[in-house]
């Protein structure tokens, strides 16, 4: 089992992040039948995050470069971001979905073009973050304009969008300058500091998403 999980003594934040990933997965599996489509995609995304973590740990255990997994997942994140926001039924305007779809396709194409295998693919990570920040702000703007949302705090996508926004804003500069702070020639302390910061924002994202999954049960009564 030890080759699948990060050792707690060495990397406590990474270990906690891997465990926290299971929270939305377990919660989502528990309520899966009653979840909206957008939240179901979110649960699947967290499950894939978990798979990514254990597979990258497995490769790291055997001293194999695992960065390509993270780079590939940034493209997968783009796909799931599009699906999650497209399937959210708060906003009834078709133009909103069209913008998400076409921008998503453009971002995916750009990410494929910028994909690198052996190091952190800065372009891919930056594109995911920019697209994510755009989607969340777009969502908030639409949610405020649409009078159908009665109490946004009880609305699952509010928590999910908040989680995405904090995660992407908190890690944007880390990945923008990842060629220096997260690259293979960066000092170990520097790498750990920024990687842990990234993981802390990821933990916040997990927790807020879990709240979103939990409040989904009230979603049908609020709009």
């Amino acid at each position: 089992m030890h080759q699948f999980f990060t050792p707690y003594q060495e990397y406590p934040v990474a270990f906690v992040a891997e465990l926290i990933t299971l929270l939305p997965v377990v919660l989502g599996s528990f309520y899966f039948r009653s979840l909206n489509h957008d939240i179901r995609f979110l649960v699947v995304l967290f499950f894939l995050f978990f798979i990514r973590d254990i597979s990258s740990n497995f490769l790291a255990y055997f001293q194999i470069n695992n960065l390509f997994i993270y780079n590939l997942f940034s493209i997968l994140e783009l796909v799931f971001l599009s699906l999650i926001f497209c399937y959210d039924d708060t906003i009834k305007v078709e133009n909103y979905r069209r913008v998400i779809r076409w921008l998503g396709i453009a971002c995916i194409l750009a990410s494929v073009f910028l994909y690198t295998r052996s190091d952190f693919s800065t372009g891919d990570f930056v594109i995911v973050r920019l697209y994510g920040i755009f989607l969340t702000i777009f969502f908030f703007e639409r949610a405020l304009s649409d009078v159908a949302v009665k109490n946004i705090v009880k609305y699952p996508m509010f928590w999910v969008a908040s989680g995405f926004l904090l995660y992407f804003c908190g890690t944007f500069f880390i990945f923008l300058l990842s060629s220096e702070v997260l690259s293979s020639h960066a000092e170990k302390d520097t790498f750990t500091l920024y990687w842990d910061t990234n993981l802390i924002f990821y933990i916040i994202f997990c927790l807020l998403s879990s709240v979103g999954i939990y409040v989904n049960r009230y979603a049908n009564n609020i709009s």
Partner: protein
Amino acid sequence: MLVMSTGMTVVIGSAVLVGMAVFIIVFVAYYQQRQAKQQLALKEIQEQHRRELMAATFRGQEAERQRLAEDLHDSIGTMLSVTKMSLNQLNRQLDDAENRRGQLHKTRDMLDETMSNVRRISRDLVPTTLQRFGLLASLEELADRATNDELRVVLDCPSPVDHLPQALQLAFYRISQELLNNAIRHARAETITIQLYCVGPDARLSVIDDGVGFDLDTILEDKKAGLGLRNIESRLSVVDGHVTFDVAPGRGSRIHAQVSLDTPLLVTLTN
């Protein structure tokens, strides 16, 4: 030095972005809550306006009924009485020819019937008993008038109801009138019970019959047939009350109208 400046860039940039993200999230939550409160207040004002309109409509309806009843009583009723007196006089002057006398009696009977019809219509239009003696007396009169060989109307009112506001007494009277009419005309009931209870802060009027019942959804879908029931709902909405229909085809109906006497709307209407 380069790493240091990169680090500073990451820290400051991230701090600014996270600060903005937190601000956006808090702003969205706060602004949306405020927006929702405003929506709720607007809805409340619209509802209040609708109720006031409804109350004004009912007041206008009652005033019109009053005018019609007065016209019927004062002009048509008087004219009919005078015609009857004149007919009586004519009767005395006529010779004993049996066929003429018979025709005269027939005409007088028709006049009597017309006069009693005018009185009934006038009474139905304006519940003078309600205005003079209150809800209980008017319901007793309503029950007495409806009772005959085939139908028994029972009034069950164990506690005094004089303290009920005038607007509520009128609403209850009109609702009883409507439900009683429905039970007689459509349900073919043999026994109808009108219950009027004041329990705690609530006043409850129930009309229970042993008739053939009806399908509520079908009746409400039909705009014409459901008018009476919708009218009951409208009357109760004016006094912030509600109606419960315990009905089904093939069995008797139980219809309950309930109003809380503490409702500020009722106090406003009364004042």
